[in-house]
């Protein structure tokens, strides 16, 4: 069971968290002005990358705060957690990930 570092509480057990899908998919400013296809992209379409993925997580059984994280979908490692109002980290800001079992 992984440890996930909540930006508000620090490292906590994975079971305290719930997953919220891809991050940085904002609710459109004017949904009425979108075509059906554009709206469908907001409602249904999400990336499914192999490797780094910006995701939303909620510390649902802890502080109940939402936050964002960069997670590697091949290793499951969390490479960065950041607040909702922080910008998405650039790839160059992230350290190359190492195989590890330690917190």
């Amino acid at each position, binding site marked *: 069971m992984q440890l996930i570092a909540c930006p508000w509480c620090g490292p906590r057990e994975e079971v305290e968290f719930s997953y919220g899908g891809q991050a940085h998919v904002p609710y459109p400013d004017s949904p009425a002005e979108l075509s059906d296809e554009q709206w469908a992209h907001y409602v249904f379409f999400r990336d499914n990358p192999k490797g780094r993925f910006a995701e939303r997580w909620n510390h649902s059984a802890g502080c109940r705060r*939402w936050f964002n994280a960069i997670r590697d979908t091949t290793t499951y490692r969390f490479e960065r957690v950041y607040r909702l109002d922080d910008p998405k980290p650039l790839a160059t800001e992230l350290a190359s990930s190492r195989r590890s079992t*330690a917190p």
Partner: protein
Amino acid sequence: MTSPFRTPDGGRIDRATTVEITFDGQTLPGHPGDTLASALLANGRHQVATSIKLGRPRGIAAAWAEDPGSLVQIEAPFPEPMLLATTVELYDGLVAHGLPGQGRLAEVPDSARYDAVHHHVDVLVVGAGPAGLAAALTAARAGARVALVDEQSEAGGSLLSGTDRLDDAPASQWVAAAVAELAAHPEVLHLQRTTAFGSYDDGFVLALERRTDHLGTGAPRHVSRQRVWRIRARSIVVATGAHERPVVFADNDRPGIMLAGAARTFLHRYGVLPGREAVVFTTNDSAYDAALDLHHAGVQVQAVVDARPEGSPRRDECEHAGIRVLSGAVVTGTQGVERVTHALVAPFADGEVGASSAIGCDLLLVSGGWNPAVHLFSQARGRLRYDETLGAFLPGEELDGLAVTGSAAGGFDLAGCLADGQRVVRAALTALAIPPAGEDPLPAAPEAVIPAAPLVLWRVPDTSGAEGSTSFVDLQRDATVADIARAVGAGLRSLEHVKRFTTIGTAHDQGKTSGVLTSGITAELLGIPVQDTGTTTFRPPYTPVAFAALAGRDRGRLFDPERVTALHQWHVAAGAVFEDVGQWKRPRYYPQPGEDMEAAVLRECAAARTGVGIIDGSTLGKIDVQGPDAAVLLDRLYTNLMSSLKVGSVRYGVMCGVDGMVIDDGTVFRLAEDRFLVLTTTGGAAKILDWMEEWLQTEWPDLRVHCTSVTEQWATFPVVGPRSRDVVGAVFPDVDVSAEAFPFMTWRDATLDGVPVRLARISFSGELAFEVYVNPWYAVAVWQRLLEAGRPYGITPYGTETMHVLRAEKGYPIIGQDTDGTVSPHDLGMAWAVSKKKPDFVGKRSFARPANADPLRKQLVGLLPVDRETVLPEGSQIVEFRADGQLPPPPVPMLGHVTSSYRSAELARPFALALVRGGRERIGDTVHVPVNGTLVPVEVTGSVLIDPEGARRDG
């Protein structure tokens, strides 16, 4: 009673105490400190059971968890299947019998306790052999927080099985001193009888402690029988030792054939001679210790059969002791029925086997080398590499936070294991910034004798004519060399496929002795390097763990929390039949003597429709929404307008997802300009609070709103029926309950003997109704006042079943029962609850999709069975006949399905709600529902079957 194979002295058993056990009906003596296996061997018994498929006799083949042979069922003191005789510690009154591969579950409930403990450490050391003890001591001396776990009954590991000396004294003295030193460190947790059975992410290890199993009937009731330790370690040292590997040959499964190291364990640890006349078959030097130790203990060692052409430098030692050593020879087969009687020995050179001759023996010891126990390393996703010299898989990379040491890392000399244990833990401490202690001595070990290179030999060519069909690779699965050959012959190349084809490694022992053999034999048959076949995946648990232990305290009533309302005891006393609604226990109906559910529900429904009924509605979700922007939030989440609601009024609302499909519904009270009470379905309470918080945090952080659950802060009692006004008016004389002063969809505050109470006119039944809200501390008192006041009118408590019937008669949907995530408000006939004024709300854009305007969408309608008798099963499909009165050819199109179905007291007939394609256009049509093989004609109606004008509700 005497045990004929017990040595006169030695071993770590308590010879002063004798216990009696019963095995297969035979009473046998043993001593505390024995295992069931050592006690059986002491009494000359090798065979434990017969094999699962072939029924061949099988016995004790190893001394611990790697044994593939000695499967037993414990019958007393507590029945438990599928244990190994080699790991069952002996206690008085143990009753067991051998198992042919399969056990049976106990028929009585397990009355033992099981629990779990979380533990956090700097360093976790797994294994208390020489390397593990050295590592734990170094970490403890440095002041680190340490856990040391070991699966045996006492520390020492391989030192328990041999004659090693440390600091010029028996090694057991150093072990005892090390254990005492660890016990003196307050930050060290040392657990024996504790198996680390799984390693997971981020230094997380699960270990099972067997706390009272070895005490038998003497186990104290208040101590948990087994405990799961959930250990989070900053660094892990794996010092789990190695398993000896057999060599496969024809008829290698007879009782009396065992691993050479196991015989040393039985001799030195348990004081047992596993036979009188032994043949030792080996490919490496380690088995010479077994031959010599048994010889010195009085066993007639007939021959050491060494497959290596040059044999071993230890040959002289043996010959000096009078033991014949046959170099360049192998065991090709055995004779004997229930026990080995002869080993067939033949010359062996360049892979060719010569003519064999029989050597009499009652014990055949085998050593094909050693497999490091790399399970925990591999579970942590460490890559393994094949070592050509050892014929074994070793850790093939460095992992952060997990190091492997001792013979688990391929080191087999005592001094080297001690030093390596210290080395790896010092590296781990450095990584944790914990400086090592100044004083950190290791015991002096004798200089290691450099062993001759082992020969890697997986199997002896089968000269018996059986073509490998009696050359067993996995004894528990009765799987042979012939089975692997069949798998390879069928074209399988992946070891994972070979495993599944042959079932090798899938039994109780998970391939501890058979796994690497299968890699080697498969590679040999395919003609490829062993490195290329690799191993099958090591998965937890390392040894079997009972479900009871994994469940721990989370069983029975503690499996899932039970939520009960303040009135629960009243409901119980009233004879309610309960149903589970989420975690809540809710009264389903209150049967009177002689009533079944149908009769009780008809009575309860009639009371609510013609007199007065009352229900405990306290489980309804309630969320307090406060803040200057509370109305803005609700306008964005509900399909209708909430900001226009007046203080003192109540409005029904529907919430949708962004896809425009209904996710919940309920009423909203406006308590103040900046405060609302949102009611949700019982099951939707947590989900809707999550939903509100998600939108507030992730999309609208500018809104000044706070939400909190108040579900358990308000007991709620709907008082329902034409006489409800009389009842509520009598209990609250200060409140004007007239229709004019207290109209439908309003709320009023009141007091009862100084206790604040909130009253609301809301109806989920279509009847005149009042809801009474009060702090749960006063719930019973208020409920009883209402019952008292209702007695003249025959007030009738009713449960969820009646509630469902009453609401269905009015066409009120239950979200999640009449909807399934593909249903819009319009499909439910609730276009009236969707605002056209609001520029946007969650779900609005999706309503503009053309598909949402499709007249053939499934819509909620009523169904009335024409026979006025059939209660349609919920979930039934709906079909229609063609114009010619025939069913269309299969596949018959399905128009929809029945979502709710009941018998109605008011209508005096059954009715149903259903989602039907183009349903509203079909009102008045007859469609059909297959019930038990016949097609029941049903009339499609509107969903509101009672009081469509709402005159009763508004009254």
